[in-house]
């Protein structure tokens, strides 16, 4: 079959429309399936989907062009995406990717001539404690090495379906190294709902208030306040959304919570639903975690059977609530709550203008609460054990515990739960960090902490974090790390606002220039200038934080870049000699005048 001819597209897509219906907000789900069928979204499919959904073609093309796991050009039957998080990079993923490409005569980013496979890199897949990692057609591969890649090459050569590949390739471990009150104590499904029903919604909300629980996604907004605002907002429907779009590079705690504590998370959602008056909840699962989908669906099914979801939950007349899982499709920005809601509605993941805020105008313009996975798990515990119990853990402003995803240069990477207020040096001791030099707290958008500040504490008042904790030992090239982060932001900017769309590119180009040894003091000033524009003029948190790693490096790690700088005040923006290469090839010249130094 010619890849661009689709005479039977209507018949091919009919079952997809059957499954998802023809509502416009099903667009992303439908396009995910189109991608699976054709290995890209052909123009004919765009036309077909647009006419079935009754939306303009431009809208379908807009969504198809936004998400990284959807593509408008063929990516082949097999698409192997190497995770390019900084930990994967340290574990050798760039070399592995090169090895694989070389072995199969492939060029990264391009599909093979027989349309069989393509190789590319992708943002952190959340397997930092068991990398190097990759995704094959969306399924996670862990602990990659050359032997495994040889095996994968053979499987692809034999055109073996991914579902028949050896399971050892896909093994994902929890690696829980330290469990506290959230992870360590037993939990009986239904207990939090029962406690909420016994106590009443208003009283349970008071417990949330007393607990001091703040959002675990990083921003730290009071959960009781968010729920109260939503509860008080008028609307035809109220919605609660679990934000499981764990995209911050270096974070993987939500993967473990969803894998082994899904009941606790669902229970938190159900408690929240009872309090805000929602009958429908959504779990927005990042595309990288699609392998958890089946297991999570089973949890939901089991809970429905047990009377913990569905109609008249636990026999309470009129307490109806159910959860639907939505899969993302490769977009970091969808972790931002309003972009996530847009994505839930099947649109491009672009952060909304605020106000209005989701608590009054969220999903389908109705009052909506969006909470992090870990926050909801905490809420379930609080519903059972009370606010006072929770508030006794941690610090005054940061109550409870925090789950950290620890990876990088340490002997025991994995999941660690600590009461808030824990100092970095204690954590570093626990995880077996060897000669630690710096820690990236809360991922690229967080803070790069030098060793002299290892006395600082994980808390909203000192070092707030969404959970990423990446350790760098002495000798690691901080500039290279920052380059990785700058590339990440440039790749993930949604492109909506000028400062972030252009600023993340400029930042990437200037950091690249310094990394290549062509930077000067002028370029450092330019980085500060671009960083200032992004921080002060951007539309959302991505742009506001995209300069953090660069500015942290400039301020705290002068050794990382000073030796790389030229002594001159100014160096050309581009590689002069390199820009002559094309003409040299065309003319066949190699004389002195055909070169510039």
């Amino acid at each position, binding site marked *: 079959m010619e890849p661009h001819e689709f005479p039977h597209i209507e018949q091919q897509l009919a079952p997809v429309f059957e499954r998802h219906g023809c509502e416009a907000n099903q667009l992303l789900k439908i396009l995910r399936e189109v991608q699976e069928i054709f290995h890209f979204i052909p*123009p*004919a499919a*765009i*036309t077909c989907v647009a006419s079935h959904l009754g939306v*303009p*073609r*431009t*809208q379908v*093309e*807009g969504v*198809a*062009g*936004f*998400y990284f796991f959807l593509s*408008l050009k063929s990516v082949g039957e097999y698409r192997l995406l190497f995770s390019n998080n900084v930990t994967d990079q340290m574990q050798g993923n760039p070399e592995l990717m090169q090895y694989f490409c070389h072995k199969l005569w492939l060029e990264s980013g391009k599909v093979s001539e027989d349309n069989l496979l393509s190789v590319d890199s992708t943002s952190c897949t959340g397997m930092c404690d068991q990398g190097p990692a990759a995704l094959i057609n969306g399924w996670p591969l862990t602990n990659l090495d050359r032997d495994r890649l040889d095996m994968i090459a053979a499987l692809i050569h034999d055109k073996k379906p991914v579902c028949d590949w050896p399971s050892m390739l896909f093994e994902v471990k929890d690696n829980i190294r330290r469990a506290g009150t959230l992870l360590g104590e037993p939990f009986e499904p239904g207990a939090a709902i029962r406690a909420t029903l016994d106590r009443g919604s208003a009283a349970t909300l008071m417990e949330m208030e007393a607990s001091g629980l703040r959002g675990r996604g990083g921003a730290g907004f009071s959960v009781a306040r968010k729920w109260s605002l939503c509860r008080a907002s008028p609307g035809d429907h109220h919605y609660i959304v679990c934000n499981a779009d764990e995209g911050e590079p270096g974070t993987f705690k939500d993967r473990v919570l969803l894998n082994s504590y899904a009941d606790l998370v669902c229970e938190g959602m159900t408690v929240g639903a009872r309090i805000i008056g929602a009958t429908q909840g959504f779990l927005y699962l990042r595309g990288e975690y699609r392998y958890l989908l089946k297991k999570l669906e089973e949890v939901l099914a089991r809970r429905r059977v047990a009377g913990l979801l569905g109609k008249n939950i636990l026999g309470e007349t009129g307490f109806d609530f159910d959860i639907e899982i939505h899969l993302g499709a490769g*977009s970091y920005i969808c972790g931002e709550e309003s972009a996530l809601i847009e994505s839930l509605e099947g649109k*491009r993941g672009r952060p909304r*203008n605020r*106000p209005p805020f989701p608590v009054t105008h969220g999903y389908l313009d109705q009052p909506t609460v969006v909470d992090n996975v870990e926050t909801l798990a905490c809420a379930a515990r609080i519903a059972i054990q009370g606010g006072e119990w929770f508030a006794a853990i941690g610090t005054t402003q940061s109550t409870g515990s925090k789950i950290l995803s620890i990876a990088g240069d340490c002997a025991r990477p994995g999941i660690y739960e600590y009461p808030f207020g824990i100092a970095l040096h204690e954590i570093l001791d626990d995880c077996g960090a060897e000669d630690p030099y710096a820690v990236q707290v809360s991922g690229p958008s967080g803070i790069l902490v030098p060793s002299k500040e290892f006395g600082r504490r994980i808390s909203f008042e000192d070092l707030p974090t969404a959970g990423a904790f990446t350790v760098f030992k002495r000798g690691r090239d901080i500039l290279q790390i920052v380059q990785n982060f700058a590339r990440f932001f*440039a*790749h*993930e*900017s*949604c*492109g*909506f*606002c*000028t*400062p972030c*769309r*252009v*600023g*993340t*590119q*400029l930042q990437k*180009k200037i950091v690249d220039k310094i990394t290549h040894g062509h930077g000067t003091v002028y370029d450092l000033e330019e980085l500060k*200038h671009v960083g*200032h*524009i992004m921080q*002060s*003029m*951007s*539309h959302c948190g991505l742009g506001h934080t995209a300069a953090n790693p660069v500015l942290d490096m400039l301020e705290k790690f002068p050794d990382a870049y000073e030796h790389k700088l030229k002594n001159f005040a100014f160096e050309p*923006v*581009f590689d002069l000699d390199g820009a002559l290469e094309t003409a040299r090839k065309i003319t066949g010249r190699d004389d002195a005048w055909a070169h510039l130094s």
Partner: protein
Amino acid sequence: MGALVMSKAITIDGKSVSFIDGQTIMDAALAAGVYIPHLCHNPEFEPHGNCKLCIVSVNGRNMTACTMPAAEDMVVASDTPELDSDRQALVQMLFVEGNHICPACEASGNCQLQAAAYYLKMLSPHFMHFYPPREVDASHPDIFLDLNRCILCELCVRASREVDGKNVFGISGRGIGTHLVVNAASGRLGDTNFAVTDKAAQVCPTGAILIKRQGYKIPIGQRTFDHKKISEVQMEPAKRTEPEHE
């Protein structure tokens, strides 16, 4: 009670500006004749808020004037050297991101990107140029679409959707790859139902959407912004700067 509709006010650069509920800072400013630089905003359409030129400082916090509802006690600073310097940087970013070769553009002199740059006293684009490869689409009998000059303001998208009811334009891609698309499987404007009489043909702030056979009808030097600042032109609501077509 309801008689005192205009009793609410905000302060912009020390001047008291009244507003009614539902108005944005930009709405209130425009109504009061206070100019806040902007490119993606046009009061005829739903606010969009992506160019970020209209960012103002509200009680010390930066906010987007065209989307932020006015609220009492807002003390707004807009005409400050700091904000104008940041706005100039945004305009410079827009210049290097696309291919804006003013001497070769029929919109020169009528272009709002250029006019905003004049207003903000931009002497050079400052940043490194991206020189992206972009398409020129001349397939439509009456209209050129030159994506080299598109600044993604989405005014054509909004005009086609809200006024023309056609959805000729949309946005695809993401990040720096974000780009305008048209409503045709071929990707060609000539294969859409776009018409020269559409509102969307009149609203492009740059020369990305140009009506054919209009070249040099008005000589360089006699165009909208050649002698008048954008701040003056945009404060004349009756005379909007729309190119005339036959």
